[in-house]
């Protein structure tokens, strides 16, 4: 059974090949073929994940480290002491993630084949989806931080690609904001904001490497037993690819090796208590370094998991197709931050400061996002802020030290949020169909309504539909009474909504209450401030959650249809409704089946207590199961039911047609509603205080410093003209006056000398004769010199 661990590489390879096939042959395969390939790849990955889970169970939850085929020694620079292999980690945490990702992912793949029907870039969508799946699985299966980072970046890329999938339609689902973002803008915003988080994660990784000398979570020798006496596994033939080896396993135990994985080492050093990390001339306490690392990790998490202050990309990401929203921005990608923090629980657990900060961020995000969700008109926006809020719950749980609770909520949230998104997709699809249907038939009623819509809309400022009346199928004000038209969607949506609100016995009840219970424990039992704060804020957030959930359900499904589109909205195809049903069933069951708390009657006995937590504890050292807190559970449920009742009373009434104002807009709650509708002016504040100053600074640097100073002044004047001036100096005074004059004076000197010497050439023969004679005399004298000397007595 151990041999199946090596299948983990398949979970990455199969989606890769699915992507490649769709990439190269998608057009030829057509919708059916491409869809089939993509869904099969995802399903296959799910099956492999199941196999791995079974293997884990069989192996008593012993984790395994599997070497990746071909790229095992990924980065290896022995001379620098850098060894970062590509290894897969199969343990309960990663298997959990794998199951969630591939399970929900497969359902969403199936849903997407229906949703994207008729789109001209159908194959590309599934290329992106499979690519995303591969990266997400790389993220969760990696054995070291760098592999995780590969997946981290990859899912960010796929998010960008998928959000901007309809890049050529000017905002099919425009996001909000004073500037008017379109789809590609939304994609870019997501990528850039994520980048900030990625920076944080990267700094954390660097610090980790510096501190520990390695990035591996766990070293092979820490795997207690995984001996493999047999030959390497046979060649795996995977989907027509021949000659490919399955992963090779770590086969031996290195005893006595000094290097530990980062988490093990961290635990050891925490125990020592006095380890110091040297940064050149500065030595820091290990605790301080870990605090630093975890704060950086937190920054990364706030980016990827849409926490304050980097959550602003998630609402805009609703511009992408609904399956994208469901998969990436509800169930999987946004949970990467949670996963990362839970994986690093050894760090976070021992760092009190960071845990506090994490909690604060989590609870404030939960509260703020919940508040923002109250006043949204767009059906997906409500869900987006809801996602942010629920992620806040998870982050708060991580901060409180309730790692298992966070993971539990992650799993349940994946189910019901995906369900809610897919349901909203179904609703939107129906609204669009209904709109076309009504438009074609030329309903007078519609035209009147549509004209009214046209005036009331303030969301389509930046784009113009020439023949369209700017009908927004996502606006809840256009919906109403859909439960009659779309029964299945309504039922599943109801299930998801109740789960979101935390109503017994749906999944959300169990996970949310576990978080609150752990907060209670941290607060009252352990007396920490963050616990108290968490309780208060999370309860408030839970209240708001219930409120806006029921508001949404009322507006969408109850009452009378407010537009012709809503009147004619058909139920979606089976391709879309089947996953809804499956997810609804899962939402209902998953809560108590996998993690029934201790002390809860009946369910615990039926399904086993804290099975999930126990499951997780094999991997997550500091996961612990808390006991069921009756008080908080009843309190929370009561608050939720109360809020549902209030929302029901407000929104159950028939709404005016066309619906322009929210019932809450009139009266004393108007300012609050406005504030909520405007999302607390968060984007506007970012623009005003960050983006515009940044752009101004950039413009300043470009125009003033770079152009005016460097280019005009420095280059042109100082260097250019200076050089020219020097050249002028050299050419004019020096070259002309000095050098030229020097040579000229040479020439003129020769001329002058020549003109003087010329005078000897008189032209007269007699002077020449005279000089001849003088020469003769000279010769005579020279010849007779001795004689003359004698004669003259010299």
């Amino acid at each position: 059974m151990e041999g199946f661990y090596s299948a983990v590489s398949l979970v990455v390879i199969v989606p890769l090949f699915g992507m490649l096939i769709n990439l190269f042959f998608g057009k030829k395969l057509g919708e059916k073929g491409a869809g089939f390939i993509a869904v099969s790849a995802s399903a296959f990955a799910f099956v492999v994940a199941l196999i791995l889970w079974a293997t884990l169970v069989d192996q008593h939850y012993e984790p395994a480290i599997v070497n990746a085929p071909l790229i095992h020694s990924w980065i290896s620079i022995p001379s620098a002491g850098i060894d970062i292999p590509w290894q897969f980690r199969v343990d309960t945490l990663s298997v959990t993630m794998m199951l969630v990702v591939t399970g929900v992912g497969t359902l969403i793949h199936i849903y997407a084949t229906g949703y994207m029907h008729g789109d001209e870039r159908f194959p590309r969508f599934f290329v992106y989806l499979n690519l995303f799946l591969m990266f997400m699985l790389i993220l969760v299966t990696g054995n070291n931080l760098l592999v995780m980072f590969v997946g981290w970046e990859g899912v960010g890329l796929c998010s960008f690609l998928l959000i901007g999938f309809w890049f050529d339609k000017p905002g099919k689902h425009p996001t909000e904001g004073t500037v008017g973002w379109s789809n590609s803008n939304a994609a870019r915003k997501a990528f850039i904001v994520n980048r900030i988080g990625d920076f944080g994660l990267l700094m954390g990784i660097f610090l980790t490497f510096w501190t520990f000398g390695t990035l591996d979570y766990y070293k092979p020798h820490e795997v207690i037993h995984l001996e493999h006496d047999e030959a390497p596994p046979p060649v795996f033939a995977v989907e027509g690819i021949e000659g490919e080896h399955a992963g090779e396993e770590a086969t031996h135990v290195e005893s006595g090796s000094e290097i530990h994985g980062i988490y093990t080492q961290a635990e050891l050093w925490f125990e020592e208590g006095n380890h110091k990390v040297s940064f050149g001339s500065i030595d820091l306490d290990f605790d301080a370094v870990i605090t630093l690392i975890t704060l950086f990790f937190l920054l990364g998490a706030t980016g990827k998991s849409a926490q304050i202050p980097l959550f602003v990309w998630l609402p805009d990401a609703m511009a992408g197709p609904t399956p994208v929203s469901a998969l990436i921005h509800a169930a999987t990608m946004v949970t990467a931050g949670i996963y990362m923090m839970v994986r690093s629980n050894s760090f976070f657990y021992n760092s009190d400061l960071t845990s506090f900060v994490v909690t604060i961020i989590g609870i404030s995000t939960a509260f703020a996002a919940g508040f923002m969700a109250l006043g949204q008109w767009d059906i997906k926006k409500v869900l987006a802020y809801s996602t942010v809020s629920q992620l806040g719950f998870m982050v708060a749980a991580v901060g409180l030290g309730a790692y298992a609770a966070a993971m539990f909520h992650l799993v349940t949230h994946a189910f019901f949020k995906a369900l809610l998104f897919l349901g909203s997709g179904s609703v939107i699809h129906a609204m669009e169909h209904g709109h076309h249907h009504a438009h074609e038939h030329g309903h007078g009623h519609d035209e009147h309504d549509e004209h009214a819509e046209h005036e009331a809309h303030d969301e389509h400022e930046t784009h113009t539909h020439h023949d369209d009346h700017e009908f927004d199928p996502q606006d809840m004000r256009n919906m109403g009474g859909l439960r009659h038209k779309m029964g299945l969607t309504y039922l599943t949506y109801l299930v998801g909504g109740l789960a979101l609100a935390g109503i017994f016995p749906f999944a959300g009840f169990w996970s949310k209450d576990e978080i609150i219970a752990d907060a209670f424990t941290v607060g009252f039992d352990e007396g920490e401030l963050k616990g108290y704060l968490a309780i208060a804020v999370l309860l408030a957030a839970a209240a708001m959650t219930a409120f806006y959930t029921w508001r949404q359900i009322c507006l969408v499904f109850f009452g009378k249809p407010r537009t012709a589109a809503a009147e004619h909205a058909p139920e979606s195809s089976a391709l879309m409704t089947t996953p809804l049903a499956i997810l609804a069933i899962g939402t209902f069951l998953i809560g108590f089946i996998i993690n029934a708390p201790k002390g809860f009657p009946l369910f615990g006995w039926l399904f086993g207590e804290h099975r999930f937590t126990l499951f997780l504890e094999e991997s997550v050292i500091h996961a612990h199961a808390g006991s069921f807190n009756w008080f908080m559970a009843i309190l929370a449920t009561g608050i939720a039911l109360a809020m549902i009742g209030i929302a029901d009373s407000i929104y159950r009434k028939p709404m005016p047609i066309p619906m322009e104002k929210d019932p809450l807009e009139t009266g004393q709650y108007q300012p609050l509603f406005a504030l909520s509708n405007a999302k607390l002016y968060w984007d506007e504040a970012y623009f005003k205080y960050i983006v515009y100053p940044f752009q101004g600074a950039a413009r300043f640097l470009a125009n003033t410093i770079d152009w005016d100073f460097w280019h005009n002044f420095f280059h042109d004047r100082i260097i250019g003209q200076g050089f020219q001036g020097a050249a002028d100096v050299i050419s004019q005074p020096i070259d002309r006056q000095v050098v030229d004059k020097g040579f000229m004076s040479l020439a003129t000197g020769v001329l002058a000398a020549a003109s003087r010497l010329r005078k000897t050439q008189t032209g007269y023969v007699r002077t020449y004769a005279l000089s001849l004679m003088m020469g003769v005399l000279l010769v005579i004298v020279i010849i007779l010199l001795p004689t003359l000397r004698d004669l003259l007595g010299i």
Partner: protein
Amino acid sequence: MVGTELALFIMIGALSILAAVMMLISENAVHSALFLIINFACVAFLYLMLNAPFLFAVQITVYAGAIMVLFLFVIMLMGAERVLPQETQRFTWLAPATLGITMVILFVAGLAIIRSDLDTSEPEPAEPIFRFVHAAAGTDAVDVYIDGDKVVSDLLYREASDFEEFPAGSYTAQVVPHEAELLPENIVLETPVFLAGNGVLSYVLTADATNSGVQALQIEGRIDPNDEKDFARLTLVHAIPCADGSTSCPIEVADITEPGDDPMVLVKSLDYGQAAHFEIKEGEYTLATYPQGHIRAAIDERGDTDEKLDLDALVQVDKKVIDQNTGVLWVVTQDTTGSTIRPKILWFALDNNPDFGSAEGMGQLLFTDYLLPFEVIGLLLLTAMVGVIVLTKQHETPKKPRFRRRMANVPGNPTVEEYMQSLRKNPADSSGD
């Protein structure tokens, strides 16, 4: 007391200087030319005094006769005899400068000459000349080396080489057969040679006394001219080895032109290897060579009778005209042609060297040592002739005005054409200027 020559020299010298000065001063070019001719004549006379008669003649002929004539022709042609109109004097400083320079030259030269170390009291002796005479019967052509230098080549029997001039000194002469290398085994004769200034030597190669080898007899000659007129010098060499191996067998030479009369003995006793010089009047002679005492014995034997003297001549020479300038060298040697050995006289001219300064001397030098310069000078003359013709050729250009001589060649006079034109225009007016 001043000798004739000196007085003559002073007079002629003064005359030449005077003529030169007059030549310089004279304004008329023709006068200058004539004065120059006088100067040349004086110089010619001086040549004569210097024992250069040939040059005297050449000077007169070439200088006075050709060059000055040329000058005069040109002067006449160009009308330069007239006094040129006085133009502005240029170079006024030239005359004093010239005078100064010439004075200095004179002073320097004069001092140098008068007070120099030149010893001109005695003329230098002439270089000795010698020749080799091959009179050794039985030896073929020979080469003669003096101190390793071949001086005579291919000297045949009965021939004499030309006179060679050689610096004075003593050397060693080696005689080898012709074209044999100068190797000790080839040497026929090795003998010391002593050459003195003014010496004229003939080395006669004869058979030695034992008639086995060759010896060289050094015979002096004289190149100075005869003092006595009509008398010729003869040199006789006794080169017959004595017949019976004795070392002495003198001979005597007599003229037996008239057989009946008593022969006139010219040489009384000449032993082997000796040379005798005597002078006889020019004329035709029949000279006979007898052993010494033979004539006296013959005369004594005849007594007072008028019978012809019957003398058995040792060697008889037929009539020979002997003239004054022929220095004759007789070598009495033996003739080995034929079966018997008979005495034979070999004639060798011992030419006097030509007189110093004579034409013959000039010619001798000119055509031997200085042949090449002679030819080159001839070419030069030829070139000069051609050049003159080319230079003075007038090109026939229509535009170039013809040389028009002025009437009476006076500047300012009309040219001939103008005059003729004026005559045609106005026949009556025939006045020239």
